[in-house]
């Protein structure tokens, strides 16, 4: 019947596309397998006040699983070996946060109790094929209360249906994929990062303000992460030209596949010939700072880099070419002398050191992200009157409070269920200086509730 025909049509459409595009097909294809990432209108919200009502969605709801007396058990999944094992550093930060909290006696929750935290770490080698069994282990065998700070968009996608159907919170995902904007259908997920799409809009806005006739060269990672930048930026440029009369133009675009085995050098070189005066590096991990080293001297564009390659560890790989790059920042950089006086930074450095982090980890900018995920979870527990799974999520989706952890002080933490599922929606624009710090070019602006709408 109807369904069958639809699928047959889809198959035909895809086959035609493949034939027509002869391999290069992503940009011309509108089919999106994840299917749900684009649906953002929240439509049928529950009539009841709370965002999640476990009596409706959860068959065998166990709201307090993982809480044993005064201990909350949480789990996390990350790559500890293999090519992506660098992200293990994020988990090191989360682990240090747990150590630190426990050494202070625990988190004082909204219900008046003080809870210690127990963290169970699993290793999926960044293979999303392994993540589901590990999530299952954490939930069913270890009986964790929530999953916190799990690494990888694909890895989190692999356990999304399972965790949502089991009504287990997945808090502070270590990814800003636009997939996490779908709290209507997946209310047990909340990202620990700002949306990649929102970040791209901050770049676009700043460019429109300062260089209304900018010619933009874009290098993006050819996966969920990079294409989020690419789509959002394209849309933002169009909107700015329509609404503000700018004449921004994307004059060159190159995708980079991190599994391809080459560097971005050829792509950068090619982009350098486009005459662009703005260069956007929508690339994460080590290839990001490497890309900076490939910019030829004959090309001096204003360069923007992804938030994922901030921090000392990444920037130190740029061989001095990091000076002058521009970034949208949502968090404090512990290595930035300008941020050194911030209370949150001081606190992180003292407590982190006490919890066993070394100087490289404290300043590196990767470990502090994990610390931030811990703070996120801690903040939710503090704000929840009754520490139950659904209540934690309801807290997460009705936040209205000042910044927590290492989030920049002027950023407002606001959420509102499916209408605004993003906790962190503010950035400042800053430029890397020669002292290993950042000079502020534009102060923090908050764009609460706009992340989903601004996605491409």
């Amino acid at each position: 019947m109807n369904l069958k025909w639809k699928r047959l049509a889809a198959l035909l459409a895809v086959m035609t596309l493949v034939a027509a595009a002869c391999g290069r097909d992503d940009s011309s294809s509108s089919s999106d397998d994840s299917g749900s990432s684009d649906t953002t209108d929240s439509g049928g919200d529950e009539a009841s006040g709370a965002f999640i009502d476990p009596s409706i969605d959860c068959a065998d709801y166990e709201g307090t699983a993982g809480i044993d007396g005064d201990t909350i058990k949480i789990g996390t999944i990350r790559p500890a070996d293999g090519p992506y094992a660098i992200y293990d550093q994020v988990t090191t930060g989360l682990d240090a946060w747990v150590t630190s909290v426990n050494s202070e006696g625990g988190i004082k929750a909204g219900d008046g109790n003080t809870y210690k935290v127990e963290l169970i770490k699993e290793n999926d080698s960044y293979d999303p094929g392994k993540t589901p069994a590990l999530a299952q282990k954490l939930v069913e065998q270890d009986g964790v209360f929530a999953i916190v700070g799990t690494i990888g968009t694909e890895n989190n996608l692999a356990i999304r249906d399972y965790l949502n159907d089991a009504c287990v919170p997945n808090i502070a995902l270590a990814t800003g994929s636009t997939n996490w904007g779908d709290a209507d259908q997946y209310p047990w997920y909340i990202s620990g990062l700002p949306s990649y799409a929102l970040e791209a809009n901050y770049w676009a806005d700043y460019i429109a303000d300062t260089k209304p006739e900018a010619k933009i060269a874009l290098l993006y990672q050819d996966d969920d992460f990079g294409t989020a930048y690419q789509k959002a930026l394209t849309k933002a440029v169009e909107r700015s030209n329509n609404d503000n009369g700018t004449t921004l133009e994307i004059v060159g675009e190159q995708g980079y596949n991190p599994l391809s085995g080459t560097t971005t050098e050829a792509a950068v070189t090619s982009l350098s010939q486009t005459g662009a005066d703005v260069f956007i590096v929508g690339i994460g991990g080590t290839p990001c700072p490497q890309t900076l080293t490939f910019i030829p001297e004959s090309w001096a564009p204003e360069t923007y880099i992804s938030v994922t390659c901030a921090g000392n560890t990444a920037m130190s790989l740029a061989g001095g070419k990091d000076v002058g790059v521009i970034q949208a920042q949502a968090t404090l950089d512990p290595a930035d002398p300008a941020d050194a006086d911030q209370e949150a930074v001081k606190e992180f450095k003292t407590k982190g050191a006490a919890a066993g982090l070394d100087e490289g980890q404290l300043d590196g900018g990767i470990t502090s992200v994990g610390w931030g995920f811990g703070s996120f979870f801690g903040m939710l527990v503090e704000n929840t009157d009754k520490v139950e799974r659904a209540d934690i999520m309801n807290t997460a989706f009705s936040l209205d409070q000042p910044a927590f952890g290492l989030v920049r002080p002027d950023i407002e933490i606001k959420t509102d269920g499916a209408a605004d599922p993003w906790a962190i929606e503010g950035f400042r624009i800053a430029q890397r200086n020669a002292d290993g710090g950042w000079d502020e070019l534009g102060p923090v602006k908050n764009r609460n509730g706009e992340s989903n709408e601004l996605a491409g």
Partner: protein
Amino acid sequence: MRSTTPNWLRWGGGALIAVVLIALPFQFEAFRVNQFITWMCIAVAAAGLNLLTGYNGQISVGHGALYGLGAYAAAILVTRTTVPMLLTIVIAAVICFVAGVAIGLPALRIKGLYLALVTLAVAVLFPALVEQFSSLTGGGRGLALVVPQEGCPRGRPECPVRWESPFGGLENDQWRYFLALAITVVAFVLVANLVKSRVGRSLVAIRDNDIAAESSGINVSRTKIITFGVSAAIAGVGGGMLALLNGNPRVNPTSFTLLVSIYLLVAVVVGGASTVIGPAIGALVYGVFTDVIGPELPGRFENATPVILGVLLIIQMLVAPNGIVGQFKEIQAKMASRRSGGAPEVHNGATPVERDTP
């Protein structure tokens, strides 16, 4: 080739193993059961590789790619067509057969170390290929095994395909386990029949002495190509099982990197190349190290599993190149000959065919 194991031991052992295999999903948590399913997928893919590399002597360092092809083929068929799920695994096998034949053709001319080189490149190329055809495969984002259906949670239009047990009382993971077990047993029985048959003898004959084989009437080229195809098809079945049965609602290119190809080789060699049950034992060793022992290693050494497997592979190759099963058989044979007195010396009975050099 003929086993020296006494009959009572074979039947008794077999019955014991059967009981254990059936009891497992009732004794372990669901996540373990899912890991067992993954091990079975690896065992099946390794059995395919063993047919090619162990029995036929054609080296492949790229079977992870065929494993991946099988997984993607099954996943795409399930999400985009109405083909029944188990049938998609069969179609995936057929697709992999064709791919295997395509690789097998150049393998007629490219042998030994050079074939290893080419297949290595295939393994490395596979994730990039997935990326290249991203409209079909979902690219780096992975492919969600979701289909439009009624009654998905929270009014989602699509949700992951599910295996519902037609028999009451079985949990979802247990039912998937038994489906996987059934496919695995069938795959191993087929391979066992194959290697004990006329075809199996010709595979070994080609491996050990292709000229003698040809002179005995074996069509060496054809057999080698079909072996590549059949081996690929079996690896594809493993991949199809992985996509549909291991409880993961998505298929991702990062699950089919070069490392997977290497681990398949580890399973074959450590378990026992050119023994029927070897790949299963090897997959078990791999699984136990990665999923059971690895996570228990103390903090700093938690990521030592690859080193352990690498060293294990080398040691196995140096000390007992016939793998665990081969070693076991050797010990058995030794004990048997000690009982009957007189230990047979082991000499290689073949030398290469002569050429008179003018």
